[in-house]
């Protein structure tokens, strides 16, 4: 069973590489950020798996929870930052702009 966990961990790790490709080529900044966010979610699972392999799940579960939490706060902060970079667009006047142009 331990081997199964190790292989799953390696496979999840390998799945991060395609997403790293998206981080490198991603046409806009926000594409890259989405990809980083996805890698963060995978890391949460990976941490629990590592805990299973080492037999110390009760410790690694705390790490995983903290990591998920910081990942969430990070993505919210990035979203806020993007709003601040473009402060004059929002739900109401995006329609107006479309009609003008």
């Amino acid at each position, binding site marked *: *069973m331990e081997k199964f966990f190790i292989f799953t961990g390696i496979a999840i790790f390998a799945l991060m590489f395609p997403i790293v490709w998206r981080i490198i080529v991603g046409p806009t900044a*926000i594409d890259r950020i989405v990809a980083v966010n996805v890698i963060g979610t995978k890391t949460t*699972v990976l941490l629990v798996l590592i805990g299973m392999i080492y037999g110390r799940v009760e410790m690694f*579960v705390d790490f995983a929870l903290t990591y998920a939490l910081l990942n*969430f706060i990070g993505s919210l902060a990035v979203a806020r930052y993007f709003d601040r970079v473009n402060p004059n667009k929002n739900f109401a006047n995006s329609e107006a702009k479309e009609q003008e142009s």
Partner: protein
Amino acid sequence: MIPATICVVLVCIGFLFFIGGAAGIIRFPDFYTRMHAAGKGDTMSVFLILMGLATYQLADFSLANILVAGKILFITIFIMWASPTSTHALIKAGFEEGQKLWTPDVEKEDSGE
């Protein structure tokens, strides 16, 4: 033996969804559709894999193991709870930044209806 089997099945299905999410992130044409793959593929696969691990944890039944399984369940709930919100926040940021909407006929149509 039964918990181990359930664990293997759940982890494998979850991993399949992870592959789907990764393929979507690479292959989908524009930001919004990639967001679909990122937000959804992750939620369900995390749920399945963590549930599988929690089941395996319950194989030798004791109070400590029940609590650890509860904690894993808590992580799952947290991710299911936070993921829609962060997906929404990111897609809203992208929308307000003016990301182009991809449609099959017209490659470069402006965002909007």
